[in-house]
């Protein structure tokens, strides 16, 4: 189950962060997302190998905590997408697919002429779409 998705701007400012849990753990998830930015920076600055991963936007598993797995994705405008999940057995392809759809939703949201770049994404359509993607993530991984 995805517990949290986040969009973080290129100055490491949170643009959108949404948790999908019932518990009041927003602060914890904020911390996890905030922390993972270090790993993103690390990945970006020290690419493991060149070649096929050169233009790879998917950063893979950023770090495993005790209960969560954190995945990252970096767009070419240095906007980071963070996914926090409780699933311990996640297929990479699922996550890639998720990020691809999430990216599309994000692009649509910021293409809105009323969206101010660098400000938080307040679009309700975006939120709805993200929650749909999040729900379908659970389904596709179950299949």
């Amino acid at each position: 189950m995805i517990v949290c998705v986040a969009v973080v701007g290129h100055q490491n400012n949170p643009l959108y962060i949404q948790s999908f849990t019932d518990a009041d753990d927003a602060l914890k998830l904020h911390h996890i997302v905030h922390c993972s930015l270090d790993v993103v920076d690390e990945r970006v600055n020290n690419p493991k190998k060149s070649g096929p991963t050169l233009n790879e936007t998917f950063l893979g598993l950023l770090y495993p905590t005790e209960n969560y797995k954190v995945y990252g994705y970096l767009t070419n405008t240095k906007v980071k997408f963070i996914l926090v999940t409780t699933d311990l057995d996640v297929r990479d392809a699922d996550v890639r697919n998720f990020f691809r759809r999430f990216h599309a939703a994000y692009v649509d949201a910021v293409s809105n002429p009323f969206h101010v770049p660098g400000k938080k994404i307040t679009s309700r359509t975006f939120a709805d779409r993200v929650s749909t993607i999040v729900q379908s993530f659970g389904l596709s991984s179950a299949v």
Partner: protein
Amino acid sequence: MADPASTPLGKMLLEEITPVVMVLCTPYVEESCLKNGLSLIQLLSPFCDFTNIDVPVRTASDQPYRLRKFKLRLFYSSDIRQPNLEVAKERLKKVITHVGEKNFRESSDPSQVNNLLSRPESEMLPSWFQFFNKELVRTLSFSDHEAFDHPVACLLVVSSKDDEPVNRFVDLFNTNKLPSLLNDGAMDPKIMKHYLLLHDNQDGPFNKATKLLADMRNAFGQNDCQIICFNSSQDGKIHHQDNPWAPFKSDALPTENLGCFLNLDDLNEIKDFMQELSSKHIIPYMEQKIRVLNQQVSATRKGFRNQIKNLWWRKGKEDTIDTPNGPVYTFNSIESQIRILGDYAFMLGDYELALSNYRLISTDYKLDKAWKRYAGVQKLGSAGRRNATRCGLWWAEMLKTRDQLKEAATVYFRICGEDTLHSAVMLEQASFCYLLSKPPMLHKYGFHLVLSGDHYKKCDQIKHAIRTYRSAIPVYKGTTWSLIKDHVHFHIGQWYALLGMYDVAVTHMLEVLASTHQSKTTQELFLRDFLQIVQKTGKTFEVLKLQLPVINISSLKVIFEDQRTNASAAAASVKESLWRSLEEDMIPSSTARSNWLELQSKIIPRKYKESNICVAGEALKVDTEFKNPLQIPISVSSVSLMCELSANPEEGKLPNSSNEVQNNEDRTSTSSGDINSCLILSEVDFSLEGGETTVVQLTVTPRIEGILKIVGVKWKLSSAVVGLCNFEFNSVNKRVVRGRRKQHSPSSDLKFLVIKSLPRLEGFIHSLPEKTYAGDLRPLVLELSNQSKFPVKNLKMKISNPRFLYAGNQKELNADFPACLKKKMNVEKSGSHANVNKTLQNLFHFPEDIFVQEETSLSWPLWFHAAVPGNIPLYITIYYEMEGVSSIMKYRTLRMHYNLQVLPSLDVSFQLSTRPSRSQEFLLRMDVVNKTSSECFQVHQLSSVGQQWEISLLQPVDSILPSQSLFAGQSLSCFFMLKDRRRSSTSDDSIPSISHIQSDVRLGPQDNSEAFFDVSSSPLADFHDCERSSQGMSSQGCEYKVDFVFIAQLPEGNSDSSSNTPLVFSHHACDCSPSSMSPISWLVDGPRTIQHNFSAPLCEVNLKMTITNSSDAIASVHINTFDSPSSNNQPIVDATTSQPPEHQSGWSEIPIVNDTKIITTEALTTRVPKSLSLESVPQFIWSGTSSTKLVLQPRSTAESPLQICVFTPGIYDLSNYVLNWNLTPVNDGENQGEANKSSGVCQGYPYYLSVLESNFKD
């Protein structure tokens, strides 16, 4: 290769990993030692550390080397076991608490992340970590897994006082008392023993001891027995200059004289003994052991160098799994032996042997592998956990040494156990690892600090918690991770409050106060806690940057009055440029626009012109916008300005010229209304709902001269916290409304020069309606009152919109309205337009003898006319001069501003058309529609302006509008005849006498004897002039232009209850002219009815066309007659009835009976082609010339004969002709408009001719 002692790890290892000597002694020994205030171990410890022992060592390799540094650790046998867990914990806790107290007091926060990183590493890393780690490691010593802490040798000490010392020695090494390590088989019990006899010289002669020594030597061997005599000093007065025991007895009081019975000989003896013990016994023993073990290991495992890690530890792992009760290695297992070998070699400094030619730094690495294994394997049980902790600590240290700080942090993180306090420390250390790693991982640094703080808090280490949280602040500062930021600040605030440090708590709570993103409940919690803390402080806080409520500084508006005064707040909000354009020609130019030539500029000091001026006793107003960013309501009270009033430096005569006015307490007391104080400040209370914004007007009134500076605003939040907002620091966007000089620095915009009290007129217009109907005409009274002690004179008034407001005559003040508007029979009309020029300039000079005396008021009549509907702003500015009061200000202006809402009332439109038959008469159609929703107007009169028009009703109004009142939505059409009196008097033969000239028509009841309203006298005439000029009409031009004034009344007692007098409504229409006025008009004249005997073939009818050129140009006119192309012989008998009525839109044709019928030109033009197309069968032909050309001089008339032939009787429409006209302008460029339409085509208009069959034959 780095010197091992230079790194913290190396130092730690050299200190900690040294051979352990187990000490067994009898109570007498201890007793003797305690005479010196020392235990045996304490006594011996200073002499166990050898920095230059210089012992040759030969271990496994054949190369001997010399060992320089060596150290022994002495422990009582009872201490050689794992320490009590609880006690250890307690001790660690004490350590932490102690450090917490100390650091808490010293701590200073780095404010910026950059600062944080720029500091040297040693400063950054709290030094107590080292200490703590050491303590922690100590609690974990003597595990059964490693040989470092296993005793290498055993020192048995017996006092000479003991009975049978030899037996005592045997007893001491009784298995029951030995530590479990030796008993449970983890260690080889056959360790080296050394026997020491301690002789206290105070107890007796030395020879007894020597005898005992001999016995011992017999029993235990020659080399292993020794004797030490001590306490040689009898009086115990020996002072040791540099006390060697001090580091080993931490709780010693400075006054205590340690080793008071030990003289120099004793010390030397002890020293020699220890050196001998190490160099002659322990080191050779270890050497030998190493060699033996090495031999064994080499025998069992070939090439053990390469296998050391694999075999050793894999095997160990397997062992652990096999015996889940705990990893137990027996001493004689090969693993244990290898282990001991390695450890011994390490302790002897033979690192090459110990770890296969790796250098020390690589040695660390190897060891780290080992401990990692430990940490990974030993997960079961607290013993394993604690061991893991120690191994982890060392491992982390090693990683740190090797700059693998990230990994070190991970290790720290992983060794967090269930003990929260230790976890907290570990997490904090981890956070520093992240901080120090390259590049720094600040996010993780912050996160681990927060985690650590949480753990500290759980263990009630609040000070540590605060410290860690505060260290985390710079990480989150300036970012938008507000949820985390709020959490950190809120908790710091709470914890400070727990510690009773409310001041600091408040500053942190302030950070979270204006957190708009939080939920409502969280906001409530924040605010509640904040207020609680503030209450606990017991004083009112003054907070410079209180974010609650938010003040929008950019919307700050300062309203002050220098020579420009405002009658109302509405006037103050009007743009300055508007007033200035209004006042431009009214105020003396020298002050309005001064140049260097003006004398004025020399008189008034430059400073006065540069700074804003306000007058003592007059209030300065500041509009401030407050916004509540939260979702919960807040209450704000005692909002007032903060001002400073200082003496004018040039005059310096202010009584209280000191700066004490800056003191806030002083000002609050002044604001309570103390008249004698120099400033009066207003106070406002209000409460704001969630998200609400309000604008508050604050005033300050200086009472004495000086320089007034508005510093800021302050308020009280929930009557607990005083918020201060300084206007200065963000003054770039500030907008000072009255500020004339925009190039000034903003700070000077809030600085005012207070000058002596001046007269100030108050102005008010009585009974000016806010809402009225268009056309409303009424008198008003302007009241100007002067509250000061000085008279003002030279009053002038300018009104922005003279269409609406107009100054009357003083004698009109008490005139009876509306009777004063009526025509008075006996009054001459002379001079009625006397003040036309005045009104056109909009500037009204009050008569020169008008003064507004001190403390009196002046009333002046005004006329009001609601000219057009809409929202109408009215600006009135009144200029006045004071005499001899101030040199700085000679005049002032009073600005008044009113907004009127004028509703549409009656829509009056006029249509003027030339009467076809008579060129000097016009038909006037007036359409009146009542556009109101409820009002019922009484129509009163229609007047034409000027003397030249005579107006008369075509039919009595009674027939059209019997009630004479126009109800809501009702419309009325009236037709009038209009005669040009000049023309008719000259050209027409009927000359009306002057007395009969009627330029007014009564529309009301005809029998009413009420007089007409006089449209030719003030104010109607004046308003009419305004209407003319505003409607953009010039008085010249075409002479067929008439102005009308339509007057209606709203009877008294109607829905407008504000007045009892009837309201008069006048509607002005200017320059009405015939709609399609062409310069050519013509008239076909001829018989209307002809009787003809059609026995004769045709009937000729002669007609006459009179053509008038009314233009100023020469006109050439073609009259083209044409017959219908079709030759249908059907006569049109009663043409009108044959026309389908649906083709006539909106106009019902009535058969022409007489030409009183008004035909609009529009209807005419549409009708003509229709009738042509439909009927198209004229049964007549034009005879004579089909085209006639005439040339008409300007303003002349010509005649042209026309003739038709009729063949059958019938009614004929003689409209099938066209007039083509061309104007040749006279050579003056004036009438460009005329010249443009210099040609045109006119259709003929209907002329019906009835031709009848004559009955009689001639």
